[in-house]
């Protein structure tokens, strides 16, 4: 639709600006065409307000059937491209039908919008929030302008956050006990833990800890699961002997993680796993995967 407008040279210049855009945090987002752009970040129950300005090309007037602005929350599944599931849709009328001769601005406000889901740009799914301005016209097509914004929701530190502790092994071959200090980590957290070797009969070459993201989309027979390894972090070099304990300290900051999303609007889930991998000298891999929950902790003041 934008394409058509571009081609025919739109009769007006439409823009959407957010109130207090200066002070608002922004994130860079990769757009469809591969370019990154900065978009403002909101969180649920915030008031989203601003102005829409419509400036007709000088000497032209725009006849319209009404101007409205919509706030949309959409989920787009890539195997079903083009179809958007709107889980949130709010509309404000900005202008009754008429004509616009000169530049005109319309303030808008969606107060305390409930935006339960975070924006997400996954492998097979995208969840996005947009503001959409539509200038309705009768014979030529509507003039539509979009403005993306991002939503991030913060959660408090969980009250219950048990460590993950487990003993695993292959009989008479390898027995280890591993421990991660928590089961729930925030995005800038550090995974602290240790691997304790109870029995080692294989010649281990090294050991690494992987962070894996599993994104599952769709449901039923139409479920798509995509797993990617975000981090490969070598924990140990060489072959340990019985009784050794190897420390784990993995900073999550350098990796592009998102919080764990569970069953978002029955469309998709994003889950995170810690995968402990031991590699032996014949490059055989022994691993144990554990789910961890990632959440977004409100930035504490001292962290700039």
């Amino acid at each position, binding site marked *: 639709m934008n394409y058509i407008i571009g081609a025919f040279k739109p009769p007006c210049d439409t823009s959407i600006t957010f109130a207090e855009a200066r002070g608002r945090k922004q994130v860079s987002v990769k757009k469809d065409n591969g370019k990154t752009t900065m978009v403002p970040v909101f969180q649920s129950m915030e008031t989203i307000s601003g102005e829409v300005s419509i400036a007709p090309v000088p000497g032209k007037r725009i006849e319209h059937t009404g101007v409205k602005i919509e706030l949309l929350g959409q989920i787009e599944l890539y195997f079903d491209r083009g179809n958007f599931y709107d889980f949130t849709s709010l509309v404000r009328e900005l202008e009754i039908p008429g004509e616009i001769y000169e530049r005109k601005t319309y303030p808008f406000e969606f107060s305390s919008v409930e935006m339960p889901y975070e924006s997400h740009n996954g492998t097979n799914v995208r969840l996005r929030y947009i503001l959409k301005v539509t200038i309705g016209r009768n014979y030529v097509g509507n003039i539509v302008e979009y403005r993306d914004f991002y939503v991030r929701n913060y959660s408090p530190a969980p009250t219950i956050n048990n460590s993950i502790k487990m003993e695993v092994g292959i009989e008479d071959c390898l027995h280890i006990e591993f421990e991660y200090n928590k089961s729930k980590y925030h995005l800038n957290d550090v995974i602290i833990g240790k691997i304790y070797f109870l029995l080692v009969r294989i010649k281990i070459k090294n050991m690494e800890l992987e962070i894996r993201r599993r994104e599952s989309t769709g449901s039923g027979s139409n479920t798509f699961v995509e797993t990617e390894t975000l981090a490969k972090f*070598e924990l140990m070099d060489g*072959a*340990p002997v019985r009784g050794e304990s190897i420390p784990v300290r993995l900073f999550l900051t350098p990796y592009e993680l998102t919080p764990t999303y569970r069953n978002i609007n029955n469309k998709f889930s994003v889950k995170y796993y810690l995968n402990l991998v031991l590699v032996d000298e014949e490059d055989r891999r022994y691993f144990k995967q554990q789910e961890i929950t990632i959440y977004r902790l409100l930035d504490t003041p001292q962290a700039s």
Partner: protein
Amino acid sequence: MLPDGGGGDDEERWLAEGIAGVQQNAFYMHRALDSNNLKDALKYSAQMLSELRTSRLSPHKYYELYMRAFDEMRKLEMFFREETRRGSCSVVDLYELVQHAGNVLPRLYLLCTVGSVYIKSKEAPAKDVLKDLVEMCRGIQHPLRGLFLRSYLSQISRDKLPDIGSEYEGDADSINDAVEFVLQNFIEMNKLWVRMQHQGPVREKDKRGKERNELRDLVGKNLHVLSQIEGVDLEMYKETVLPRISEQVVNCKDDLAQFYLMDCIIQVFPDEYHLQTLETLLSAFPQLQPNVDIKTVLSQLMDRLSNYAATSPEVLPEFLQVEAFAKFSNAIGKVIEAQVDMPVVGAVTLYVSLLTFTLRVHPDRLDYVDQVLGACVKKLSGKAKLEDSRATKQIVALLSAPLEKYSNIVTALELSNYPRVMDYLDNATTKVMALVIIQSIMKNTTCISTSDKIEALFDLIKGLIKDMDGAQDDELDEEDFKEEQNSVARLIHMLHNDDHEEMLKILCTVQKHILQGGPKRLPFTVPSLVFSALKLVRRLQGQDGDVTGEEVPATPKKIFQILHQTIEALSCVPCPELSLRLYLQCAEAANDCDLEPVAYEFFTQAFILYEEEIADSKAQITALHLIIGTLQRMGIFGVENRDTLTHKTTGYSAKLLKKPDQCRAVYACSHLFWTDDQDGIMDGERVLLCLKRALRIANAAQQMANVSKGSSGSVTLFIEILNKYLYFFEKGIPQITNTVIQDLIELIRTEKQNDSQTSDPSAEAFFASTLRYIEFQKQKGGSIGEKYEQIKAA
């Protein structure tokens, strides 16, 4: 191609590649540093450090690579310091940032580097950072890489330990943290080092052992660091450091490590500490692996401590206080017990060290020395004589040590275990040892003065005194044997006591022993004994009063009995010439003691020997002259005895084989009838008789020569007889008149003329000088001159 050669080449190539990798990344790192690009600096330094992840290099080559990277890391560290000083990145952030590296080895090198900066910045207590670092380094379980990483950690942390007095000193307890850190790093390094032996193929075991040896200093360095920490005082060392180290050493159960580390402990920590912690230190030894060369280490320890004792005498009380000797002795016992397979030489070496230690530290404690020897005997007991030459050598060292120290064999003789140790030596070595003992006595001119000690001494040197069981005499070198026996002979002279009774006992003891010597030894040893005994006789003689006492056992008579026995033994060897001389010596001594029957007996023995044993004519001549000489001096014989003896002697003289010999013996006999002593014999008639007889024989000799060789023999005999005449003439024997002499001179002259063609220059000279003598006496005047006046010599 040989796999080894190929391996070497490959390794060179791998090293070159590694170095190239380091250099290349270092180049980019420098560029990043110059442009203050922290992110790139981290990236390239991590890549550079990744070169250290190689498994293909031997320790030697790996070290080379490590050093390259190490130099670069110094620059990076400086950059970090600069960066944090400028405030563009806090050190805490930096500390986190470097931990983002995905590979564990580069990550830890970087972490250590930043850690060093962190400590320097003092934003966190040194102990916390160090603790974190040493803990995180567990991530490297590969022995070689782990050792180098930890060595890097040790290197960068060395000057940053929270030591007492250091700027990084924290709260009161911080010294514990410093020690704990070094200890932990040491323990981990040692584990890695030991593990190295057990990884990889079995066939390369030896090679690995060699490689490990190259790496040992990396491990040992930690102990050195510990010893350098100010805060490690005796208390600390005793309570924490030593127990922890020795626990690790014992538990690692690795030969190489145990040997090296024990040695290290002994070398790096002060002697004073060792002394105060002997118990703990020594208790580790018996727990070591059976193949560990404990003796070397333990010897080293004892050496060090004895040096310590030697350098500062004021510490000696400490040695006593801690009962150093008892502890060592105990430990050695346990070690020997624990190491069943230890060869005898090892055990003996240990005892040698202990003995050396004892001698140096407790020179006054002879009982300690004896204990050591006793322990050694215990160890050796149940075994046959030692075959192992090294062990033998050690035993010789063991036995020589006290001799050297005390330079007095008497001390050694008090050691009851000394001879028992010697019993374990083979015969040859026993002899060597005996010689050493004798030499020691000689060198120090030690006088051994009681028969008990002599008994003990002879027990020690019995190898020289008698044939040992199963000894192979044929193998003996004649020269060596002589040397040995001469030593024994010399030794006998060193046995002396001023008390006569004791001396007598000594003689009895010596006699008892040397008579066991057998025919080969007696000729060497008996003379010594005889003369030693005669010396006593002379001393007794000097104090006449005592001799009469009935109770006194040490009478010359008694001694002469001993002498008689002894010489008799010698004569059975047979060794007649020597026996004869000794009999004569004894006879003379008996003469001086006024023991006529004894003297007579000795003469009888001498005569019997002469008659029965001495067959060689030359020996007969010598013997006869000896008899004559001795008999001449004997003053105690009554007329009858004397007659018998002189008669016999002249009889023998006349029976000599060659005429000249007969002649000389006969004129020598003339002296038997004329002694200068008062109440000596003065029988001029028989003197003249002898001389005349000599002349007759001389004449006969000349005639025989004439017949057999066609020329008359030399006139020497006549001249000799002339000299005898002159002698007696001067003595004033009435029967020797000037006319008799005159006749003889004439006779000689005639003989010479008859025999002008074979002039004998020596005879000429002899005669001439005799004549000159006569002239000289004439000119002297006085009574002698008057006597000579009538002889016409010219």
